[in-house]
């Protein structure tokens, strides 16, 4: 069963082609990787899936619904969550509130009820609080609950971003270079974590990453981008041997 279908999508910035005619199918409960040299358009693909950019061509289907025209927040509500290449936590909210923001769209109370803080608001806020603490605990972040994200080590911030995507209970998770800036030990634990949460929450995951070991180990399918075009698609062992991929990464000498 496919959960996400990207149908020959293109995006241009001025005259520059960021993504050209890109297609992919994401199956349910699978972990897929997107790799490619710097500037190949990997993050742009994420921005197109999540609605940060509107696409110039092509269509995107999520759970068999056409979401090409949906605004970004609607796509989140539909079940797409993401992390960011350069961490984007809300620096004026503490760790707990950063978690709560991500499930605000699930709240059932109205603005009017919120204004005068009816019991229903208090009740739901308590539920959200429990839920946020639950997910913090799940990723071992409980000790940081009341801190501001800027004061936390880099690896912890990355993990908090991950926790923040989970609280929205997504169906599709997009991880943008989750291993960037992590030391080798942290990368190993990240791999374990991704596998674990994929199984625990029945997630479909797409990972953009430069860290080849991570990609090769946990992805069942890999797409390779170069200059906005897909140059290869296949299982990790095939990608490793692919001439075009080696060429793109290493140049002629490779």
């Amino acid at each position, binding site marked *: 069963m496919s959960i996400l279908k990207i149908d020959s999508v293109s995006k241009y910035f001025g005259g520059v082609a960021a993504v050209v005619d890109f297609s992919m199918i994401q199956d349910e409960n699978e972990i897929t990787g997107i790799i490619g040299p710097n500037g190949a358009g990997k993050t742009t693909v994420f921005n197109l899936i999540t609605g*940060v950019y509107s696409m110039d061509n092509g269509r995107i289907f999520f759970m068999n619904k056409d979401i090409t025209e949906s605004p970004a*927040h609607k796509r989140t*509500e539909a079940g797409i969550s993401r992390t960011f290449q350069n961490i984007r936590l809300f620096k*004026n*909210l503490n760790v707990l509130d950063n978690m709560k*923001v991500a499930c605000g769209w699930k709240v059932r*109370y109205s603005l009017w009820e919120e204004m005068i803080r009816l019991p229903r*608001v208090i009740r739901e806020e308590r539920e959200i609080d429990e839920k946020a603490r639950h997910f913090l605990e799940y990723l071992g972040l409980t000790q940081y609950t009341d801190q501001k994200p800027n004061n936390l080590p880099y690896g912890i911030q990355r993990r908090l971003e991950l926790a923040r995507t989970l609280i929205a209970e997504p169906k599709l998770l997009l991880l943008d270079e989750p291993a960037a800036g992590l030391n080798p030990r942290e990368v190993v634990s990240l791999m374990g974590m991704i596998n674990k949460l994929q199984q625990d929450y029945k997630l479909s995951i797409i990972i953009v990453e430069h860290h080849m070991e991570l990609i090769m180990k946990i992805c069942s399918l890999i797409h390779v981008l170069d200059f906005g075009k897909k140059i290869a698609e296949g299982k990790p062992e095939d990608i490793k041997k692919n001439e075009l991929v080696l060429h793109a990464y290493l140049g002629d000498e490779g």
Partner: protein
Amino acid sequence: MFYLKVLEITSLYTILVLGVYLMTGLTGLFSLGQGGFVSIGAYTAAIAFMKFNLPFPVALIMAVVMGAVLGFLIGIPTLRLRRDYFLLITFGLGEMVRAALLYLSQLTGGALGMAGMPRMVGLPLILISIIFITFILYSLKRSRFGRNCVAVRDDEMAASMMGINVYAQKMKVFIISSAITAYGGALYAFNILFIEPNLFNWLESGRLIIITFVGGLNSIAGVIVASAIYYSFGEFFRFIDVWRDVLLGVVVILVVIFRPGGLFQGLELLPKKLIEKVKRERL
């Protein structure tokens, strides 16, 4: 008597500052047109009461509704713009309100202003209003709405990835803010008893923003304290005239350098929190 007057004026301005706090403090939207909304509130209430003989409570409600509706109408085209353009356009709109009030002299009295309102608003009503508005703002601040505001202020793109409709959120903020500001204007008209188009120009709007910053972007208590100090100080030291603003300028510079989060940072003066703090320090 003098002190009572000072307290009244200070409290009136505090309502205006609270309106701006939601917008500029919590959501990071800068508007130099809030003075326009004060005038709109003041004139709407005064005209409704004086020219159309509506009862005072109705006039008050009309001022609030007018503020909210105009906030909505102005928000439609402007809130999608980048924040710097929003600032410039609201500046223009505020000045337009001033020009319109001057021009529509049959209704507004033009440059002569409007006088002769009965004194319907005393200190009790102003203080109750402050308490009520503070309660609403604080309720909003500590639930979804407030979190969304801060998220939008910190990072709009990330906020939209959290399922927040950024445009709608800004719209709600702008409407509530404008309604509060217009309400403050209406109270002003029926307490000071004289209004004229030049009372609330963009400088006044700018001052409201600066006080919000000095008090602390994340603290309603801080903003109230900063506003109380500034406006009561201003009344006591009227004789030093322009030096008031020089002094404010110095304070602003000091705050920005030494306490960028504002005087109160994120602290809220809540009885519960204070008791906890005292207890912790004793241990």
